[in-house]
């Protein structure tokens, strides 16, 4: 429970209690992703034909299906809980990779200017002209399905935002006196870059990372929905939603619960991201 306490700590919540809501919800998701799979057992390839398409609250061979069962008799609640873990693992991995690559390229471009900047800026322009999800679909479609491929496919286009942000900040921080001071002390260029420029990217990058996390979760679900993402033995909200498509008229719960889980998570992460962005863009400089 300590996690929710930490996440609801920001001072703004004292004045506006509603502001805490997204933090509480994200906290619940994190708890579900961390500990849910330990509590609720689920085997994505085990089917139970006798329990198929049961409405929420029905009794099954192995207990009560609180959120019903799907077309092959798998528990929907278990899918939602296990899917949360998948979404977070893939989303966080994608954000870590894209942020690292984006910060590195953006900081180098912004700090050195001239030729490195020219090359990296053109690369950014090219990536910007190409829809990221289309690129991910092509890559995921060409390679075998698997978590690693999904992470790579989503990372290929995701670094652009981080690079653009980092480049802009590095360009302004480079002009600050402490960078000159470091250089007059004979600090090497890599050390100047990592110790006197990159730390100033932190706030803005964290704000952007939150928003990118939401879009990575969404993109993973989209890929899995299109059968290009995760293989059937990994639980994913996108797959669950796709699996419920043909029963939409008769068994709505198969689609609605994973869909709602996805929507609420993306909205809450987005709300936090917007708030962080406002805070750091105002505070910068």
């Amino acid at each position: 429970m300590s996690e929710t306490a930490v996440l609801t700590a920001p001072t703004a919540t004292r004045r506006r209690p509603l502001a805490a809501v997204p933090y509480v919800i994200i906290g619940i998701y994190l708890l579900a992703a961390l500990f849910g799979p330990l509590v609720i057992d689920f085997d994505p390839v085990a089917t139970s034909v006798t329990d198929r398409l049961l409405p929420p609250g029905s009794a099954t061979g192995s207990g009560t299906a609180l959120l019903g069962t799907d077309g092959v008799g798998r528990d929907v609640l278990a899918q939602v809980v296990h899917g949360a873990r998948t979404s977070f693992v893939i989303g966080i991995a994608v954000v870590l990779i894209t942020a690292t690559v984006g910060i590195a390229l953006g900081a180098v471009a912004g700090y050195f200017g001239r030729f490195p900047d020219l090359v990296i800026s053109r690369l950014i322009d090219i990536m910007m002209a190409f829809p990221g999800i289309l690129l991910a679909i092509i890559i995921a479609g060409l390679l075998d399905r698997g978590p690693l491929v999904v992470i790579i496919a989503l990372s290929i286009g995701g670094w652009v935002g981080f690079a653009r942000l980092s480049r802009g900040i590095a360009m302004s921080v480079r002009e600050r006196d402490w960078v000159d001071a470091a250089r007059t002390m004979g600090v090497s260029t890599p050390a100047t870059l990592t110790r006197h420029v990159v730390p100033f990217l932190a706030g803005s990058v964290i704000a952007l990372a939150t928003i990118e996390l939401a879009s990575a979760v969404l993109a993973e679900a989209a890929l899995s929905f299109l059968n290009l993402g995760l293989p059937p033995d990994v639980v994913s909200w996108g797959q669950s939603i796709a699996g419920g498509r043909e029963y939409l008229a008769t068994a709505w719960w198969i689609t609605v619960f994973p869909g709602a889980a996805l929507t609420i998570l993306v909205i809450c992460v987005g709300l936090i991201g917007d708030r962080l962005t406002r805070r750091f863009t105002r505070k910068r400089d």
Partner: protein
Amino acid sequence: MTDRPPTALLDVEDLEVVLAAGATTGTVLDRISFSVDAGRTTGLIGESGSGKTMTAMALVQLLPAGARTAGHVWWREEDLLGARARRVRQVRGREIAVIFQDPLQALNPTQTVGRQIGEIPRRDGLSRDAVRAKVLELLDRVGIPDPEQRIDAYPHELSGGQRQRVMIAMALAGEPRLIIADEPTTALDVTTQARVLALIAGLREREGTALLLVSHDLRVMANVADDLVVMYAGRVAERGPARAVLDSPRHPYTRALANNVPSVRTRSAIARPLPGAPANPFDRPAGCAFHPRCPLVTDRCRTETPRLRELEPGRFSACHLAEEVTP
């Protein structure tokens, strides 16, 4: 100009810096020559835009992108302008250190002052404890009370005077032979200014380090400088021993500056302000750059650029009428 005295630690010879601003280029520094002797304080003085900071930064090659340089910066028989980047980096900090104008801007707000002062000792491969001991000793040497407490403070937790002391400690950490101080007291209040100046002067005496002091404040210069280099519009107007330059200027610009210092004893707060605006190095008047503001101006001044010439040993002036300038 090959008047290189054997004692000169730093000898700047015909230093030129050309900057491009859009389509036009400007010779921001035009044939600057002066030297800094070991163990002495040389003052670089001039109005804003006269190129004094640019000169100081050119010595450690911290110039804006796209700046072109010419001439020589002789550092103990080695031309720094022609040196490789690696060599320049070796010189920076360990042989020539820089104290910046605004310590709040020049200290990285995300690092503790201890870490920033320990930069060079740490790179020398000292152990963590040895670095800490050295930093504590430096903090003590620059007069920061309670170093044990301050070493882990962040720059914003210190007062302006303490931050400038931290900057000085950073400069001392590499045990340099020359310290370049760019307006080290401008950002401080008057009482703190005096204390920081006393500290710098005292350190110079004890450590035998040479000091290049950049300032627009003649009172500061009169107190600390041994030699003076007066700059105007990117050129050296006059140089020589500080006392002699201030007491009997050999350039009308120096005379105007010296007469301009508001003295507490005289009643007028602003005595005889200099007429006109400082010349812009991008659009320098023909001939002597000072001629539009000069009371002694002749036709020759409008067309012929005066070269810096030696009037008597150690006294140089770039004025056609240097002999006629009276205090």
